[in-house]
């Protein structure tokens, strides 16, 4: 387990390890040997230009695509080569880039389908209750057709749906896609909340600046290779990266409202908690009282 030279703020062991992954869809490789880690309890953001292989990377992790070479493992257990169903069984869920709700079905049916692989009826019902507790606004839409909701609302329902499995790793492919800045904030708040509930988050963002600000770790992917990895603010403030992907260097002074300084505070709390339902629940109760 050789760690990369640019070891970011150490938060915990890597939850997900991607080693020398080469993968692509039919017409040639898109990823040319990607090696990176997703740290337990953190939010890791992958940024990069179009065609860098971000979505291919997520497809490879979630079992939609098998890597041609290399290996993906979750806490030491091999993930690559498994079916999407087996990946779900291991507690890894994907919220894809394009809206993935079943448009002709109600919001309730959509969320219930999120727990499709749960075999116990009672467990699914309990999960539904706790998911709705986490996303109270979704309760009002339960009877509506998913296709009738706005883009931001659909995102929240997708988040609620993916939490039905009480996953330990949540993968988000461009959650900001097509959302207005105001809606974007509520979606990112939801991401932060899921993280505080103990979910490790892997995020791909076209909106690199907003994505990195949200994240504890950043990875820059370029032409199917990792160009740079570090803490969220390191990548955000890296001069070259700023010039290339963020439309000019970021000059915001550290500590002026960016979550950079918040991150170390949030991370150990989440990292200390084992990512299982019971602890996440008690932790959320603690979160309600501790800060502010």
């Amino acid at each position, binding site marked *: 387990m050789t760690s990369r030279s640019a070891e970011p703020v150490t938060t915990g062991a890597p939850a997900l390890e991607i080693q020398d992954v080469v993968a692509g869809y039919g017409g040639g490789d898109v990823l040319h040997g990607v090696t990176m880690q997703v740290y337990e309890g953190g939010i890791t953001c992958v940024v990069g230009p179009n065609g860098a292989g971000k979505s291919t990377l997520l497809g490879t992790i*979630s079992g*939609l695509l098998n890597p041609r070479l290399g290996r993906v493992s979750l806490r030491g257990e091999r993930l690559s080569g498994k079916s*999407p*169903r087996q990946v*779900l*069984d291991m507690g890894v*869920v*994907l919220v*894809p880039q*394009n809206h*993935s*709700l*079943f*448009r*002709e*079905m109600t919001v309730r*049916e959509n969320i*219930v*389908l*999120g727990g*499709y*692989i749960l075999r116990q009826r009672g467990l699914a019902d309990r999960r539904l209750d706790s998911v709705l507790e986490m996303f109270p606004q979704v309760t009002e839409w339960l009877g509506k057709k998913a296709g009738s909701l706005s883009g931001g609302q659909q995102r929240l329902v997708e988040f609620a*749906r993916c939490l039905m499995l009480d996953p330990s790793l949540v993968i988000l492919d461009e959650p900001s896609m097509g959302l207005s800045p105001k809606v974007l904030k509520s979606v990112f708040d939801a991401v932060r909340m899921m993280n505080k509930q103990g979910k490790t988050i892997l995020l791909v963002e076209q909106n690199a600046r907003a994505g990195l600000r949200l994240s504890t770790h950043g990875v820059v992917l370029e032409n199917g290779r990792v160009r740079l990895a570090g803490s969220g603010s390191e990548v955000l403030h890296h001069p070259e990266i700023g010039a290339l992907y963020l439309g000019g260097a970021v000059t915001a002074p550290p500590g002026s409202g960016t979550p950079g300084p918040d991150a170390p505070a949030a991370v150990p709390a989440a990292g200390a908690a084992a990512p299982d339902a019971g602890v996440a629940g008690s932790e959320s109760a603690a979160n309600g009282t501790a800060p502010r």
Partner: protein
Amino acid sequence: MGRQLSEAIVDGILGGSVYALMAVGLTLIFGVLDIINIAQGILVVLGGYLSYVLSVHLHLDLFVGLLVTVPAMFIVGVAIQWAFIRPLRGRERTSMSLLATYAVAIIIEGILYIIFGSNYVNLSASYTTTGPKIFGFYLNYIYIYGFLMALVLVVGIYYTLYRTQFGRTIRATMQDHTAARIVGINVNRVQALTFGIGVAVTAAGGMVFGATGGGFNPNTGYDLISRLLAIVILGGLGSIAGAMVAAIFMITLEGVVTVLWSPSWSVVVFYGALVVVLAFRPQGLLGRKAARAQ
């Protein structure tokens, strides 16, 4: 004329329900697999022949025989899906499926010719020739029994689709393959089972068809598939409610034109109605406008 007209309407509604059953199978298969099963017509005929064998050689009642033929046709459907549909991949899948299922139709037709020859076959039982007198004409019981059975099966399919977890997985797969896989649905398995169900209903449809019409031979499949395609396209491809409405509408229309005008015009009006409806509603009566996301 009044008596004939009422007979045509009653026959159309009752007989149309059986077409509805066959069409629901076809449209369900299209909705979940994106393929048009050209073999659906010959499979109806195969179902009819299975009922014929059980009734003539084993003296099983036609409806009791369905307990054998429906599961048998389900297995035939799953096997066809596995052998001919599953290997089709890529962008040309839908058009390739036309050729593949057409080939299946020709193979089954050939086998039926070898076994049964080209003579027309009728399914008969006590209730295929007797019945009550209503509106001044005699209605054979088979029309009523067939209608009730079609009703039960269609309602059963509807209930399964909208009220059960399995039905939810079918509808989810109809709407979005990738999203279905993301929540852990085994899309391949759903496709195989759906094809099996879509073909299984042809056994019931084929039995009633063989017991009510002027008989069938292996060539009847082509006439059937033309009508079924017209019905599912009129109803809106992939729409189950649309297939039911369109089946009853078309078969009744055909019967009424036969009475009011002439049998030779009924076929023209049948397909003419399709063209007229599609000119105004290209997506069919109850079809969705947008294609399903992959």
